[in-house]
């Protein structure tokens, strides 16, 4: 399967429920097209047949006002067809919402404007009780104005949401800020991510390949860029990838708690700055976006909304990431949601901010 499909008909049918949905879809399409042909045919025929031709004299038309039999027929026949359609819509939703017992649950958290995926595959350090799990997130693929880029260009290096073929997967969907909606056309599934609620959907992929993921609930500026790709793998390949990732995490687990050198921290922070979407609201070239620019922020005097002044230091930066509403810089809206980051990640981010020169 190529990742570009001709957008003419339904996307490739790549999940076990897709055929059920597709059957209902094609049923309604065929009935609709037949109804369309018949009704529009009658309309066009009447218009052509009974139009007043040039120089035609006025003629007396039949005084037809109603016909009860006809009225009853064209009330009942559509009603019966509609009942059938309702039934197949019901069959399809039963398939889509019939959650299997034996499925792997992957947590998906939507946030402006990317998706975070948290797999249930973890490594744990018995001694310290620390735990790391496989996770990843898509990146905003909205191109800049006038960049000449398209979304495809930015999609090349995207994170891939990897899943094994033929296994039941349940996605538990949450949102960190506003309502999003997770949509995988190839699987015919869609579910809103509502803040404050855990919603879910399930699928069993039946085709290998990459398929797009979209956000379909309008969520602000880069709504269109909140997309990603799901990669369906052979179960064996998936297990290999999983083991490799877990091995990496085991390595990382060892370094937790150790004092890291500044360079590693800065490198990690640089990555996180884009990966966590900080760049959506904070510029690095002194440019004002939703929030203040962050270059040269460290050590600077800032005036707060309540008029007090403070010098930006580690503690302030840390607080501003974890509890953004505590102190708001004067002239900016209190718009930043608390960030979903670990202690280590905060440390890396602060190190990165420290490193930024004016």
């Amino acid at each position, binding site marked *: 399967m190529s990742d*570009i*499909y*001709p*957008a003419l008909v*339904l996307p490739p049918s790549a999940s076990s429920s897709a055929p*059920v*949905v597709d059957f209902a*879809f094609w049923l*309604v399409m065929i009935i609709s097209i037949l109804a*369309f042909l018949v009704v*529009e045919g009658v*309309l066009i025929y009447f*218009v052509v047949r009974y*139009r*007043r031709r040039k120089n035609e004299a*006025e003629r*007396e*038309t039949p*005084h*037809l*006002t*109603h016909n009860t039999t*006809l*009225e009853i027929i064209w*009330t009942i026949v*559509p009603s019966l067809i*509609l009942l059938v*359609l309702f039934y*197949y*819509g*019901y069959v399809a*939703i*039963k398939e889509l919402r019939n959650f299997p017992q034996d499925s792997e649950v992957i947590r998906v958290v939507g946030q402006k404007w990317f998706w975070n995926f948290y797999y249930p595959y973890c490594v744990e350090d018995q001694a310290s009780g620390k735990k790391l799990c496989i996770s990843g997130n898509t990146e905003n693929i*909205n191109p*800049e*104005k006038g*960049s*000449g880029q398209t*979304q495809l260009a930015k999609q090349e290096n995207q994170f891939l949401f990897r899943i094994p073929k033929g296994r039941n997967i349940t996605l538990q969907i949450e949102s960190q*800020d*506003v*309502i999003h*909606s997770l949509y995988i056309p*190839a699987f015919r*599934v*869609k*579910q809103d991510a509502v*803040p*404050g609620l855990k*919603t879910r959907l399930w699928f069993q992929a039946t085709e290998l390949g990459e398929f797009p993921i*979209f*956000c*379909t*609930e309008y*969520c*602000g*500026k880069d*709504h269109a*860029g909140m997309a990603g790709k799901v990669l369906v793998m052979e179960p064996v390949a998936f297990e290999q990838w999983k083991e490799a990732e877990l091995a990496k995490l085991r390595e990382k687990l060892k370094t937790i708690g150790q004092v890291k050198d500044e360079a590693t921290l800065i490198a990690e922070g640089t990555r996180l700055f884009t990966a966590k979407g900080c760049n959506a609201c904070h510029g690095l070239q002194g440019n004002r976006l939703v929030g203040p620019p962050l270059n040269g922020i460290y050590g600077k005097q800032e005036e707060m909304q309540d008029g007090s002044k403070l010098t930006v230091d580690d503690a302030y930066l840390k607080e501003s990431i974890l509890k953004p509403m505590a102190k708001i810089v004067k002239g900016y*809206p209190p718009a930043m949601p608390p960030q979903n980051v670990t202690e280590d990640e905060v440390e890396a981010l602060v190190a990165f901010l420290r490193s930024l020169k004016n």
Partner: protein
Amino acid sequence: MAHAVAEHAPVSYLEKKGILSWLSSVDHKRIGILYLITTMSAFLVGGVFALLMRAELARPGMQFMDPQTYNVLMTLHGSIMIFLFIVPGIVATFGNFVLPIQIGARDVAFPVLNRFSFQVYLAGLFIIALGLANPADTGWTFYPPYSSTTDTNVITLTLGAFVLGFSSILTGINFIVTVHKMRAPGMTWYRLPLFVWAIYSASLIQVIATPVVGISLILLVAERVFGVGFFTPALGGDPVLFQHFFWFYSHPVVYIMILPAMGVVSEILPVFSRKPIFGYKAIAWSSVAIAAVSFVVWAHHLFVSSLSTTAGIVFSFLTFTVAVPTAIKVFNWLATLYKGQIELKTPMLYSLAFIFLFIIGGLTGLPLAMIGVDVHLHDTYFVVGHFHYTIQGGTVLMMIAALHYWWPKITGRMYNEKVAAFMFWFVFIGFNLTFIPQFILGIGGMPRRYADYLPEFAPLHLISSIGAYTLGIGYFVTILNLLISLKKGEKAPANPWRANTLEWQIESPPTEHNFHEIPTITSWPYDYGQKEERKKESL
């Protein structure tokens, strides 16, 4: 009912000049014209926004606007078209102008209230205009928590919509009472023109549904101003509750838009096919049925927003019930054409196009009503296409048809038939070119409200944009043609279409109090195509 009308020489209602004489007038015809001017201006502004969006979407990648600009345009296009143009659309313009005359009244039941409705409408327009300094970017649906956290002027837009809703309620009350109490002697319910039935049904929806959205929008404002967590989960709120409230109004509201359009079709078809309307009672009561059923289908907008599956299935079923009265109407219109003598004048062309497009709009509603299929199609371009086929192909086209049909009555001038008929084809072809590709895009999985899209969708988007500009030219020249006729058009006779409804039995343009003497009605208005003596017999 003929009571205390001053004795003076009959003068056209257009006689008095000056803006003040218009704004202070309580004449339903003048108020109708004021609505016509404002709603059509809103239509042009909203249309320009749509064209800007289509220009950006013609190619993938961001060409000449950033995503935020696109989102603002998308919001303004939706809000202006919905709240300022299409809801007051036919109801407030032609409802005001035509309805009282059609039932043989000198004015609506509460003329001062009618003027007040328009003033409230102007106030709403003004409030929305105030917000344009930092226009909202929420989409016209205002879903929280996005709308309660975004840094744009959501408050002005929602308050504007609230005020406009108030105007809509007052207009609705006025029409309902007018239809009940101001009918001329002999004008029984089954002798009412079908346009009146349609407006009456739409007014019922206006009265019942509008307060619901009004208070929900105020709750949203409260959320922003007072910082309550009504729809904020961290404070115990439920964002989906807003969607319930919002669609409790905003689904019925599409029937406020489409029912009057159906009423206009039911008027124009018999006149231009010279045949009685077929199935009068079925059409009349299906309007009321649609109004009633429209209230029990709202949750189909929530199929994927964590609505319980059981509720979803029930609402899916209820949604299908709307299709029945709608289908009945279409079949009756077709039967009206049968063995008629169809004159393809501009209003008739638009009406036939309405039937053609509305069938597509209706049929594409079916997969959206099927809950399992809607999961795939929800919030894609398929929905955009479906909505525009019913509301633009339906209401806007009938608004244009009504303009042409009643233009001689309103202005006393005939428009240029050749230009109008020629531009019709621009509109018709442009319309299909714009929205047929959107169905295909939607089926292919293209989400709506996207400033940018994946390259595989590009060819269809390009076709859609070309169609949009064709459509734009069509509408623009059509309206220009009408405006030119104000100066250059021939004087219109009282009844250029040889129609039977009451508004054609008085002068063009009508006099200030419509009738010199209130007529006594002895038959329904649809006895077309019969010899005069036969007509008298059939009474």
